[in-house]
């Protein structure tokens, strides 16, 4: 008993002599808030990355491309690997944040990961449907010089007539077999679509943007085997509303 009291007195003496003071409460609260903020901030960043991935996949021409190339090749050509990498990094930082909060250790990695994925999917889908993903991607493309936007990549993918991919704006619908079209470089084409399969809802009329798969028969004449709209239906409607 005596020994116990001596030891506790020794402890109190040491604290008093060395003037050791408990760290202020705000110090711990701030640290905790910082980790929660890191978690939330990077969860939101992850959602934005997810919404841009969603935008890239929905905007892609997987159906058309996969009929010309193998499915795996088509998948790799449309996957926005940079944004997938961003999503991974943001998720890791977000998980790091929550694991370092006061009670973060109580949640298993699986639980945190599932919660993070659900949050990214929910907020990402919301961001995508409000048009935020497209705007964000454009801002990113405008401000990061080496970054090629999805639109630019799409144009370059569909401006390759030698390999069977062509796109542009209809100048004139001559008859049920022939249309005249101008590609993105201003070159004029005569398109024979007599045997083409029409993919998606599209009216082949003046000023409509289209893309197609086929082959060059002679100079400036392209035999289309498949034709589709340049943009997805929802987006075309949006543009019409804005106009």
């Amino acid at each position: 008993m005596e020994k116990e009291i001596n030891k506790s007195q020794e402890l109190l003496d040491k604290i008093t002599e060395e003037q050791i003071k408990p760290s202020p409460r705000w110090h711990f609260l701030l640290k905790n808030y910082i980790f929660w903020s890191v978690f939330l901030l990077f969860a939101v960043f992850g959602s934005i990355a997810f919404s841009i991935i969603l935008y890239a996949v929905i905007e892609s021409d997987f159906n058309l491309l996969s009929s010309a190339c193998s499915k795996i090749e088509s998948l790799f050509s449309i996957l926005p690997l940079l944004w997938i990498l961003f999503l991974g990094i943001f998720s890791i930082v977000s998980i790091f944040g929550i694991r370092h909060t006061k009670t973060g250790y109580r949640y298993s990695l699986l639980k945190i990961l599932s919660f993070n994925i659900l949050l990214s999917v929910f907020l990402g889908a919301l961001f995508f449907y409000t048009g935020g993903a497209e705007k964000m991607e454009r801002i990113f493309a405008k401000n990061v010089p080496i970054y090629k936007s999805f639109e630019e990549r799409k144009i370059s993918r569909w401006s390759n007539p030698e390999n069977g991919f062509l796109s542009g704006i209809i100048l004139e619908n001559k008859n049920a077999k022939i249309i005249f079209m101008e590609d993105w470089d201003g070159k004029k084409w005569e398109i024979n679509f007599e045997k083409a399969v029409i993919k998606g809802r599209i009216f082949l009329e003046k000023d409509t943007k289209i893309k197609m798969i086929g082959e060059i028969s002679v100079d400036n004449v392209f035999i289309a085997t498949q034709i589709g709209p340049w943009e997805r239906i929802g987006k075309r409607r949006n543009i019409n509303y804005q106009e």
Partner: protein
Amino acid sequence: MRISKKNCRKLSDEELVKKSLQDIKYFACLFERYEKKLVRYILRISSFSEEEADDVLQEAFLKIWKNLNKFDSSLKFSSWAYRIVHNTTVSEWRKSKSCGKDQQIKIDDELFENLPSKIDLTKEFQKGDSKREIRKILNNLPEKYSEILVLKFLEEKSYDEISDILKKPPGTIATLIHRAKKAFREEAGRKNILFEL
């Protein structure tokens, strides 16, 4: 002027934490309340001598004092104190190992004489012939297994308490205990000893 034992006893851990922040004398009550348990725990997870264990405990209580405002009453004070003592012991033990002490954690002979008996493992510990063998087995287990077996079967902590002490999810604790028991049985099997665990 010290706070009397009687007055200390009237107060819960959480109340003592609050009062310690206003008057340091109450901190002695917390120290005295946990001193024996925590020294025993330090000895169980390291091979420090009793004097060294006292120093480690004092070091840990200085940390507790510095971080007293961090204490969250949603946790049990004992779990929080065990956590700090555990981390201080492991850190001091690693430092001493790097200074040339024994490479394995040893469990004190005398300690086994005083072990509480509740479960089969503990009963086995109390059988004179088994003590040395169990000690050898625990010494041969990886640190993550021996420390969890000590917390579960010797300190008799619940899964949630162990989760708070080791800062791991309760599910992971359950898995670790399961693996530690398996590792214990296998190690015992290698030594031709049969234990109920």
